[in-house]
């Protein structure tokens, strides 16, 4: 028997965590199937930024090796495929019966497709994997970059 401090606000923390999980679920299975945007067991989260020259995509893919990643661009659509393996010691814990106490992390395959509204220069895309985050830079094509037109007023 362990005596723990009673925190009357703990229930709110748990509630917000539950809600957060709900939203995560909404992104991973139910809605994704309808939209057909991504397939797989889970769905990594991403952010997109842009400036005048390029799009910048940042994708959270913790624990994924470079060899398990596949990145491609065709018809202005970026596709990221990958797989997160469940490590052997994790399996081991499960095999021993009720030995794991908590499992919130996702495993298995994932796929994300991301269309861009403006043509990207598919020859010059760069990607960099660091600390479990994949950074992709997609330069915009010359003709789509904003141009400054000077108007001469007579």
């Amino acid at each position, binding site marked *: 028997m362990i005596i723990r401090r009673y925190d009357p606000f703990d229930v709110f923390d748990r509630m917000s965590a539950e809600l957060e999980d709900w939203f995560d679920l909404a992104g991973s299975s139910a809605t994704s199937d309808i939209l057909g945007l991504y397939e797989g067991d889970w769905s990594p989260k*991403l952010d997109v930024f842009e400036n005048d020259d390029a799009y*910048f995509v940042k994708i959270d893919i913790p624990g*994924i090796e470079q060899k398990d990643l596949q990145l491609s661009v065709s018809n202005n659509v970026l596709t990221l495929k990958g797989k997160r393996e469940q490590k052997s010691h994790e399996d081991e814990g499960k095999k021993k019966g009720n030995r794991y106490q908590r499992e919130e*992390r996702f495993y298995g395959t994932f796929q994300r497709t991301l269309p861009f509204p403006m043509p990207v220069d598919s020859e010059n895309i760069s990607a960099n994997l660091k600390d479990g985050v994949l950074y992709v830079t997609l330069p915009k094509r010359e003709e789509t970059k904003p141009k400054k037109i000077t108007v001469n007023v007579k």
Partner: protein
Amino acid sequence: MAERKELEKKKSSEVAASEEAIERFIRPRTSVYEYDDSVKIIMDIPGVNKDNLDISYKQGELMVVGRREKWNRDDMKPCYSERFDGHYRRVFSVDETLDARKIDANLSQGVLELTIPKTEAVKPRKIEIKSG
């Protein structure tokens, strides 16, 4: 299970009061596995490197704080966002059956693995029977 080890998330009230007002935190996704001689906590903290990770233990509370560096420059404007842009924090209560002074931490590819050995008293022991 009545004897379940209490490793549940718990919020440290002093942290909540001092830090939460200025910084936004999220709870990283975590798996907890129990072995005969230890407990393993595995957390997904993408974007955190060794220098921005802070693991501390105080009065039965194990706190992990990971900070993410801002990546986007000022000239980049966000056009689509799913990720919560904050830091990671999670607090576990560690009872006396675990030896928190011998925590082993390993960070690789945004995944943090904490191994906490059990104290000798609770490790399974084989008892030899003497005949004679």
